[in-house]
Structures are given as structure tokens and as C-alpha cells.
């Protein structure tokens, strides 16, 4: 008797819920926290724009948080912990440190929140997916372009940004592997600019001083590239070719002036969009996997193409 009424009640509740769904036909919003490495940086602003575009397509609410500028991983770990406490549906994270963020990420996953890695991966196999540039391929492509454009043989320098940054390690590895396959060039010991243009300029000057016959320099991120370009411009060494990853208006100027031979562009907007899309699809229960975003190779002939202009020159707002 009681069981029967309980069954009927359950039936009624199901029908009621079905009524809710049939009547309103809309899915709930997902709350997604986007934790980046520096909210004031153009790159991450662009990631956020892409993320917001995906948010409106997938009916999600994306909140960007993170330190204002790229700093120690500890600050990001604290921000991640605060985010977990707010219990968003998913977290999209650009790890400040490949190893040291592994545990905080594990804590988030243990709290039942799926974590999608964007741009910078973390040493944790239980993240939902990685969305961003294939840094190994990025390094390889850079080496490939370099080999194609420079005849003969000689020494090649690398200006990287962090010893223990996973993207830096991957880019360098890809670059070195591809270069050594070519056998024409000797790759020198890597110097580090620590994501600071002035520091990168200094180490590049030192590098050139140590190796006057340097044929080319590969700079592995925007600040390394800017520093290297400034150093080369200051020294007037147009014979040393600069191959860079990421571009800025300053670098565009150096390219126009012939200091910078080629840049590889990443697509932060796409990273933002795809990472949030991946997070939402994961929340919907779909199977998601890693996704590599586009890489564009730009030189002076294509610098002002519509397609790249917006990636290089940010709108002033």
C-alpha cells in the first residue's frame, strides 16, 4: 500500500520533472573558472575573449582569475584552491609550473571538478584534456623554418624563458631534435630570459659576445623574442637571423626593419574557445581528448594579412 503510493509519487515527480524540461527546454548553465598565468597580459586577455565566446555558445559562465602578471606558482596554487572551494562545474587552468601544480590539480580532481589544461600542461594524467599549442611541433616548425631560410652551416643560439616551464622544455626539445636531424647547425647552450625582455636582451648580448659567428637565434616566447630583437637591433647585427615564437607590435616593427626573419604565431583566442568548449562537452558527458590549436608562420610578406593582424596587434580598448 505505502509502497504503491510511493511508486505513484515517484511517477508523478518524474512526470513533473519531465514537465519542467518539456516546458522550458533549456539546459542549465555551467560555471567554469578560467585560471590563467597573468590576467593583465594580452595573451591571456585574448584567451579570455575566446573563452567568453565559447561560454555564450555553450551557455556557460566563464570567470577568469589568476595573478595579474605571471609569477611564482604558489600564488596560482592558492587561486586554484580558492576556486575549488567555490565549487565551479569545471576548471580551465594554465599551469604556472609543470611539476609543482600537479598536486593542487589533483586536489581539484579529487574534489570532483574536471580540470582542462590550456596552453601550459601539468604533470597529471587525470586531467580531462590539454588544449593548446603542440609545443613540440612548435619547436620543430621553428627549426624547420630556420633550416629552410639559412644556407650553409654554423652556430644557433636559443633564448628560452624558464628552465622548468613545460612549454619551454617542449619547444626547446622539438627545436633541438629537428635541428640536430639536419646536421648543418650546432646548437649552443640555452640561455634564459625569464619572461623579461630586458633580461632576454642582456643574455642575448652576452650570447653574441661569446659566439661572434652566431648564424641565428631562436627565441622561444614573446619576451625572449623582444629581448633578442632589441639586442640584435642595438648591435646592428643583421647577419644574425632571428626566429621567434609569438609576436607583438614591437616585434612587428623589428620585422619591418629586417631584424626579425620569421615568427610563429599561436592562437590564444582559439585556445580559450576550445578549452571552454572541451570543458563544457566534458560536463555534458561527451568524450573529450587533447586538442592542439593552430600555429601560423608569419614573415614580412604576410605580417599585415587580415588573418594575422588581429593576432599581432591588439585592439586598444
Amino acid at each position: 500500500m505505502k509502497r504503491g503510493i510511493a511508486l505513484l509519487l515517484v511517477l508523478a515527480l518524474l512526470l513533473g520533472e519531465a514537465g519542467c524540461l518539456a516546458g522550458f527546454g533549456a539546459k542549465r548553465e555551467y560555471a567554469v573558472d578560467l585560471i590563467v598565468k597573468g590576467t593583465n597580459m594580452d595573451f591571456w586577455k585574448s584567451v579570455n575573449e575566446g573563452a567568453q565566446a565559447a561560454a555564450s555558445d555553450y551557455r556557460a559562465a566563464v570567470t577568469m582569475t589568476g595573478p595579474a602578471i605571471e609569477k611564482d606558482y604558489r600564488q596560482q596554487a592558492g587561486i586554484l584552491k580558492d576556486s575549488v572551494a567555490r565549487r565551479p562545474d569545471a576548471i580551465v587552468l594554465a599551469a604556472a609550473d609543470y611539476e609543482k601544480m600537479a598536486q593542487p590539480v589533483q586536489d581539484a580532481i579529487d574534489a570532483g571538478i574536471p580540470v582542462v589544461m590550456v596552453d601550459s600542461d601539468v604533470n597529471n594524467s587525470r586531467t580531462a584534456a590539454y588544449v593548446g599549442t603542440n609545443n613540440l611541433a612548435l619547436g620543430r616548425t621553428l627549426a624547420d623554418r630556420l633550416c629552410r631560410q639559412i644556407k650553409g652551416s654554423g652556430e644557433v643560439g636559443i633564448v628560452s624563458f624558464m628552465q622548468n616551464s613545460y612549454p619551454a622544455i617542449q619547444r626547446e626539445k622539438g627545436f633541438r631534435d629537428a635541428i640536430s636531424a639536419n646536421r648543418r647547425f650546432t646548437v649552443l647552450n640555452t640561455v634564459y630570459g625569464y619572461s623579461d625582455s630586458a633580461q632576454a636582451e642582456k643574455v642575448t648580448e652576452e650570447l653574441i659576445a661569446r659566439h661572434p659567428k652566431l648564424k641565428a637565434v631562436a627565441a622561444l616566447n614573446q619576451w625572449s623574442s623582444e629581448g633578442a630583437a632589441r639586442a640584435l637591433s642595438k648591435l646592428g647585427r643583421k647577419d644574425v637571423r632571428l626566429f621567434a615564437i609569438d609576436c607583438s607590435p614591437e616585434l612587428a616593427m623589428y620585422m619591418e626593419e629586417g631584424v626579425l626573419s620569421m615568427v610563429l604565431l599561436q592562437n590564444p583566442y582559439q585556445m580559450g574557445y576550445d578549452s571552454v568548449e572541451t570543458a563544457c562537452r566534458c560536463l555534458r558527458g561527451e568524450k573529450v581528448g587533447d586538442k592542439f590549436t593552430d600555429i601560423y608562420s608569419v614573415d614580412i610578406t604576410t605580417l599585415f594579412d587580415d588573418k594575422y593582424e588581429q593576432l599581432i596587434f591588439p585592439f586598444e580598448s
Partner: protein
Amino acid sequence: MPRPTRIFRRARGVPKRLPPFRWNSLWMLTAAVTLGISLVAVLAITKIVYAHANQTINQSIEQSNAQIDSNVASSIDQYVHEMVSISDSVANLLNEFPAAELNRRLFVFLREDIETIAVFDRSGTPLVATDNRAMRSDISVTQQSWFTGASTSGRRYLISQPHVQRLYRGEYPWVITLSRSVSWVQNGSKHYGIMIVDMNFSRIKYLCSRDLESGGYIYITDQMGDVVYHPKQQMIYAGILPKDAPPEENLSEGSSVVDGRGGKLAVCVKTLSNAAWRVIGVTSMNGLATYDGGPDTYVEVAILLLAAAILAGSLFISRQMVQPLHNLMTLMGRVSKGEETAPAPVTGIYEAGRLGDSFNRMVTRIRQLMVQVRTEQEQLHRSELKTLNAQINPHFLYNTLDSVVWLAQSGDEKRVVQMVLALSKYFRLSLSGAKDFITVGEELQQVENYLIIQKMRFGDSFTYQITCENGVRSAKTPKIVLQPIVENAIVHGVGTLSEGGKIAIAAKRTGEELEFSVRDNGCGIKPDVLAHILERNPSSRSGIGLKNVHQRIRLACGQEYGLKVESELDEGTTVRVRLPLHYDAPRKGGAG
């Protein structure tokens, strides 16, 4: 003696508890059906209301979309118009002042949203500029599309796509360039050149960045369909086509509704009057779904409460409907078990009332039939009784008459007279009208007459003694109870003795009962015969008198009364007769 009927004595009320649960019961069926119908109705109404709200909201979306779009279009129009006016003023000044002089005067036109105003001669050499920064010499001005466009097109002015301007070293502002051919007279000769006004793109962007209602957006194309401004430009470059992008071929001036990939879109196209641009506003017509995803919690709670209320209501209503039937069912169950019940209610729901009424009639009819059957059965018993009585009388009469004949033959007149007298008295009592019950005194008198007759017949070979307790003499007893027993005692008991036989007859009160006892000291009855002596067995002729008496008593007074025979071989037999103690003859016949 018939037992009084008790059918209507103790009535039990109508049952009030819930009927036991059965899936296939009418209650559950009715509940499920009402529930189903109500929910279907609620869903249908919700759907209709929802569709109506959707339509209304979509209409308002379309209207507000068109409104905002035309507002934005007129703002941009006005803005471009301002820029054109500025260029007009500068063009006029060119006629009044030499280039060097003009450089100092142009600053009045500088505003935050104007990047540069400059005039180039036909070879691309800058003549006039708003500020003193050195223009780059490494770019060929004459190759720029704004330069070539203005010099070749027949239009008064040209508005470029947004682009990165590279006039100064290291500066890459996003601008929209208004360029036009200008001519001025200086020192009597006419000069031709190109003037540009670089408008900061952020201004246009700001004008367009007004969000339309419900996630809509505004974008601008030129007449060729190339995008001038699109809030999701990067998305398009990244190869992700926005879901709500309207198909290009469906764009026509004014407000319309088109089918996009993600559903219906409200699209409003407004062509600017002085720029060759089209301002296009796009909004998804998602109706209610536009607003914040799913339903609010309170709506959900309300719907769940409604569902619960419908459930409770359907259970209650169906119970109300089924309850009378269930009551009737319980009553029928009781009646079928032979219990007494109250009549079924005939008020309330019409059908159930009619059913109850019919049921009551049926029960009444059954009871009448039961009474009738009982009456008929009693009549049958009485006739059987009469037959038994009739059986006794001739039997005894023949024997006595035989004795009289025998006495008469022996010439003993005195004893013949005595016997005939006793016989006469005996029959006077036996045939005392239709009365089935006589007093104990009469019965004892009767049996004494019989004993007188029999004692003579058996040649005084036995003696008898009759005792009667005070107060039972006037009690009532069925007639001719003792005579067959005494006959049996004589024939099978003392009759077999040559002399010294004794028969003791007593009547006494035992509790609420009357007890006769007939004791003889005859040869007794064999145990195997004794065991079955009172059973109704047509094949056995022995003790037929005892059986008759026993049956008659049980028929007339009830199953608990009757005879009890105790006997021991060569010691004697005692027959006890148990009867109800009455002083009035019981009513004849059964109930009714």
C-alpha cells in the same frame, strides 16, 4: 423447539479503513487515469502558454533588435558624417593657408578618436600632418589601398576597412581611414593631393559594442560583403563559425527573420547613407530559453508541488469514488460468510446507491427464503412426528388386544375388565386431541396404565414403582416418551425373567432440565448392541421404540436432549431421558 432467528440482531457498521492495496484495483486504476489526464492537461497548457510566451518574446526581440540596430547605424552614420565635415574644413583651410602654416592650425581638429589628419601630394610626400612626429619613409604611401582608392575612385571620399596604420615607427594603431582627393590653389597654381583622416577604430568598435538583447550582436560589412567589424572576428579567423551567423545571401535591407544553423535569427540590415557600409544586427530568437537557461527553482518547486497536489487529489477523488463500492464489497463478503450486517447505504454516488439498494433487496429476499425453508422443514418434522406417533399406537393396540383376547379366553373376566379399563384410560391420554405436549403427571399416569396392562399380560412376573419429585408433576413433556422405554424394559428386560423383575420409573428435576429414568433389573443389553442402540439404522430392528422416542425428543426439543442408555449384562438397564424443563407447552412451529 425452533431457535429464534438472530439475523438482524447485531448490526456491524460500514467499514471505514482504506481498502487493501491492489495494482489492478479500481482505486489505483482511477488514480492513475486521473493523474495521467491531469498531468497531460498541465503539460499541454504549459506547452501552449510557453509557445505563446516564446512568440511574444521573439517578437519583442525582433523589434528591439531592429531598434538598436538602427540606433547604432545612425550613430555610426553621424560619426562618419562628423569626420567628413572635418575633412571638408581641412580642405577649405588648404586654400587659405600654406602647408607650413596649416600644420600649426590643424591641432584644433585633434581629438582623442582621431589618430592622424594628413595631406599627401600625388607622389606620396606628406605635406601636412596633425603632429610633428616624423613619418616613416620606408613605406610607400602611394601603394597603400587608401591612397590608390581615393585617387582612382570617383567618389567624394573613401572609407577603408579597419587596418593597422603604419605611418610612424613602432606604432601600429587600428584605424579606419577616410581618404579623399583634394585640390587647392596656392600661389596661383592648382595642386592635387590626397587627404586622410584616420579614425581610431576603438571608437567604431565602441559604437558597435552595444549588446543586443539576449546575446545578439552587431557587425558591419562593406558593400562587397567583407567584414568591416565583427565582435567574433577572431573566432571566424580561428576557423570557428559562430553558430548564430546569418547566411550571407539572406541579408536584405530592413528587419527580417532568417533560418541560421542554430535556429531562427532576427536579422536587421541597415545601410549607412554616407559610407558604403551595412550595419547588421543579429539575435537568436530563442524565446524564453534566452533568459538564463532553465526554469527558476521556485518554478520547479511549484511544478513539483502541483504534481504532488494532483497525485494526492487523484488518490483522494478516486478513493471517494471507489469507497462505496468497497464498502459494498465488504458487506457482501460478510453476508457470504453468514455474518450479520447493516443494510448497505443507498445514498451518495448514484450507481453505488443503486447497487447497494439491489444488494439490500437481494439480502432481504435471501433471508425470507431462509425463513421459508426453515418453516417448511419444521412442518416436515411435525408430520414425521405424527407418523411416529401413529406408528406407536397400533403396535401397542394389537399387543394389548392380543392380551385381552388371551385373558378373555382364560375366562378371567375381572382382569379383562381391569385391562380394558386401563387400555381405555391409556388411549384417552394418548388421543388427547392434537396436543403433542402433556404434563409429567399425565405421562406418569399414562405409563402406569400401560404397566397395569403389561403386568397383567406378563402374569405379574414383575413389579414396578413410580416416583415423582415434587414440583415436576406439572411440567410439560412430549407425550408417549416413557411408554416405549418401559415396553423395551419389559420385553427385553424383566420380561425374560420368570419372576422378581423390577421396574423403577422416576421423574425429577436436574438443574434446568427434567429427567426421567427407567431402571430395570433385567438381563441387560450386550455392549455391541448398546453402542448403536440409538442410531437411526433402518436395517436394525432392535430397540425400534427407543430410537423413535430419541428422535422425537430431539426433533421437538433440540439436539442436546434425548435418551441415554446404561446397561450391564445380567444386572439391568437404566434409560435416562433428558428434557427441557418447561411449565408451558412451547410454541408450536418455527419463527415467523
